[in-house]
């Protein structure tokens, strides 16, 4: 396998426009004959489907949920970045680019990130025209806020529903094309595998989740916008249907998987309350602007928080990071919280939480001011936890939130399998080892609206119309494999449920490939995962039939893929002998616990090639060396 990122030459600012001038175009007549499959209807999938259909391609779009509008993107709260500089506070495309590269701890491609920053402005234009009701000022112009510790106010937002509103914009544009007959729209259809013929992606096999029927779809190109794999942890802020299946099956058919261990953990989530917990809920980071994070100084201090005097409270972020205090970046806040609970200082019934206290802010600004800023969040917290945060400090804990890793793609968003593309959270592209707040929405939409429509044209112009249809043997054989797998899962008929396995897997991954990692634990995780995977195939119990709606069967497939991915994540984390971004290897930190990045040996993207699975995952690492021509690599410090 050869990794060619295909980065256009020339100055940073001109690479994309130059590339646009160079790409091949498909003639309008030909577009009508070309069929593109888009899997996923999140921001990436919906925007790409709409845009490609408008261009005249025949498009087929698939999603798991009963409507495209329910894709996980809908849950994003905070906002979307763009370099509009409406606030006149010195923002620019370059600055957004620079912040993103730096935020990613220098593990992403300069050219991609620059393009992203550049396209960010077009996204806002497009969304506003679609009727996305972004926050506005009294004069009627768009409002911005500063997000995730950025020095400029470049985040556009729509109350706490930015993802929902952006997705509705893209979804509605997509539905218009569905209505015009330009898109074949398949809901409750799960992609089970990619069909690759002579090394080129030619279609997919889907399962109709209502009837259980396996269906073959052929196309001239296949695009995956299937989201992230945070659910490998079982508990995460991802929607329950988020999965790795589509990208993993693509991986097993030849697409390299990049940086699988780069996982972002969000520090302000509502903690787990019991074993039955099915997912975690995120609360906006903005809470840390006024809340103070603390734990009792001594382990086992069971007094109610209000009775613990100030001198016995450990405001650990403020003490450890005097200049940033409670506003340290996500990864630093998360890591410290975990350290506190590891040391037995955690609070609440489970001991897996720290306090986020608004006592002082309320005393300073008054309850009304705090309520005006955070009223919604306080209500949400109270609804879930049953405690009133105006009176008792919130309990928070980090939770898995976003996966920077994903399918390796070149500058054109094409994977290592020709004709197979990946966009949005499903690819690894723009966030390096850590994603800045409000930039995932930006990336999904940039990919879908403004990158894929051109780069796929370039590919299709060269590849021409495919003559392979679903009668080709390859379709039959992949469909058979899928069928066999379904039968196999249903026939195990063991003792443990899918959820039970998933929960156990999640705990292994969280404990060992979570906020901090070390060689010993990673190695142990690998053997544990292998053993559990073995047991899964011997002992899983999946009820019901394959021929009707069967959520447990769906989940069983996805969990089976998570098992394989988890092992790869461990290899990846093990390989990376440095700490960078969200990846903290305990062996590579200063005595004070600061990450030590190693640019000399690790300034590369890890792209893994699937070889075999035989009790053990056989995989080969390929490295895409990252060149930094335009920015200078600096060490992050928040002291």
């Amino acid at each position, binding site marked *: 396998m050869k990794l060619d990122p295909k980065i256009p030459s020339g100055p940073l600012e001109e690479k994309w426009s130059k590339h646009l001038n160079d790409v091949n175009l498909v003639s309008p007549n030909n577009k009508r004959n070309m069929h593109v499959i888009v899997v996923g209807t999140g921001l990436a999938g919906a*925007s790409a489907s*709409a*845009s490609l259909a*408008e261009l005249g391609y025949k498009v087929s779009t698939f999603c798991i*949920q*009963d*409507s495209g509008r*329910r894709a*996980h993107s*809908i*849950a994003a709260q905070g906002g979307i970045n763009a370099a*509009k500089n*409406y606030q006149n506070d010195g923002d620019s495309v370059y600055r957004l680019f620079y912040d993103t590269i730096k935020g990613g701890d220098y593990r992403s491609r300069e050219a991609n990130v620059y393009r992203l920053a550049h396209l960010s402005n077009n996204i*806002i*234009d*497009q*969304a506003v*025209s679609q*009727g996305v*009701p972004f926050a*506005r*000022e*009294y*004069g*009627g*112009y768009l409002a911005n806020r500063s997000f995730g510790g950025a020095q400029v106010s470049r985040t556009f937002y*729509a*109350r706490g529903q930015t993802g*929902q509103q952006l997705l*509705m914009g893209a979804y*509605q*544009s997509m*539905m*218009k094309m*569905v209505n015009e007959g330009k898109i074949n729209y398949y809901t409750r259809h799960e992609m089970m595998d990619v069909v690759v013929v002579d090394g080129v992606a030619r279609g997919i096999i889907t399962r109709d989740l*209502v009837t259980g029927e396996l269906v073959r779809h052929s196309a001239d190109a296949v695009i995956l916008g299937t989201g992230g794999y945070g659910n490998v942890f079982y508990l995460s802020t991802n*929607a*329950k249907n988020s999965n790795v299946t589509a990208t993993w099956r693509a991986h097993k058919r030849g697409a390299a998987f990049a940086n699988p261990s780069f996982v972002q953990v969000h520090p302000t989530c509502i903690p787990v*309350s*019991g074993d*039955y917990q*099915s*997912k975690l*809920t995120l609360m906006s980071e903005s809470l840390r602007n006024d809340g103070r994070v603390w734990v009792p100084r001594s382990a086992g201090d069971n007094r109610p928080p209000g009775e613990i005097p100030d001198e016995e409270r450990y405001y650990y972020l403020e003490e450890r990071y005097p200049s940033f205090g409670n506003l340290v970046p996500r990864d630093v806040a998360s890591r410290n919280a975990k350290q506190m609970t590891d040391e037995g200082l955690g609070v609440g*019934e489970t001991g897996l939480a720290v306090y986020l206290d608004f006592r002082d802010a309320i005393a300073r600004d008054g309850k009304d001011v705090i309520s005006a800023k955070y009223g919604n969040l306080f209500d949400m917290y109270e*609804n*879930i*936890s*049953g405690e009133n945060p105006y009176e008792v400090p919130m309990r928070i804990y980090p939770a898995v939130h976003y996966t920077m890793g994903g399918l390796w793609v070149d500058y054109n968003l094409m994977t290592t399998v020709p004709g197979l593309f990946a966009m949005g959270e499903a690819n690894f592209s723009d966030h390096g080892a850590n994603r800045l707040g409000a930039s995932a929405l930006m990336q999904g939409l940039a990919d879908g*609206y*403004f990158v894929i429509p051109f780069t796929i044209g370039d590919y299709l112009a060269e590849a021409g119309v495919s003559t392979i249809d679903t009668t080709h043997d390859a379709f039959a054989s992949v469909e058979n494999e899928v069928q066999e797998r379904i039968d196999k899962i249903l026939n195990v008929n063991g*003792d443990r*449920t899918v959820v*039970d396995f998933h929960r156990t897997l999640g705990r292994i991954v969280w404990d060992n490939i979570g906020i901090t990692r070390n060689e010993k634990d990673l190695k142990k995780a690998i053997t544990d995962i292998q053993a559990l995977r073995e047991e899964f195939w011997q002992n899983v119990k999946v*009820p*019901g039939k394959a021929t*009707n*709606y069967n*959520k*447990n069967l769906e989940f069983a497939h996805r969990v089976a893929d998570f098992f394989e991915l988890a092992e790869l994540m461990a290899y990846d984390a093990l390989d990376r002998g440095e700490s960078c971004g969200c990846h903290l290897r305990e062996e590579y930190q200063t005595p004070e616990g600061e990450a030590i990045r190693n640019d000399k040996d690790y300034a590369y993207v890890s792209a893994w090639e699937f070889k075999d699975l035989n009790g053990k995952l056989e995989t080969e690492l390929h490295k895409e060396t990252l060149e930094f021509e335009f920015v200078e690599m600096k060490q992050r410090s928040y002291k």
Partner: protein
Amino acid sequence: MSQMTIHLKIWRQDGPEAKGAFENHTLDTVNEHMSFLEMLDVLNEELIVAGQEPFEFDYDCREGICGSCNLVINGRAHGPKRLTAACQLHMRNFKDGDSIVIEPARAAAFPVIKDLVVDRSSFDRIIAAGGYITVRTGSAPEANSIPVELEDSTFSFDYAACIGCGACVAACPNSSASLFTAAKLSHLNRLPQGEPERQKRVLAMVEQMEKEGFGDCSNYGECEAVCPKGISIASIAEMRRNYVKATLAG
């Protein structure tokens, strides 16, 4: 932590054509912090282990935003609590020993797929008929070239908040989709961007809503009461006004 015993009576239906019936189950390990869906998860896990089939129900985000969940709990869409989707409903809203009846949303336009899962693709088709603003990718003008009065923008947003859960239909005595349809119309029609297609939009969406087999609106207002996003039926009146204008203009 208090444990509760809950008696459940849940609809079981094998498929769209099958005849359904209720099934009774008692759970005695319910924790007040559980969400309603987590309580069903626990039941399902017990059923699977006991060799029975679990109950199917729709969900995804479990935080009240995707609109997947839509259970009718003791005769109320999304359960007893206002402005709360079923997935955000916590068991502390129930008492030890309570009996709870769970049914799917019932409407001709929402046929049952299995158990508590229904087919809401009719909503997709209503949006497809006109619930959009036509703007080709790339043809949008600079965002700040279209100022929007704050009042219009706020108004529009209040209706854009709809999550498409279908609770309004489930609760409406007439199974009307008026609130869902009107919410989208109020979102788009009030914005300057949505102005050019305003008349076409309202006619097309109303026509589609009727084609799908939803009932008429008798202004019962139950839809607003169950709507997890508190969408106001004022939008329904607004839809009628726009409809009249569009008809007279034509």
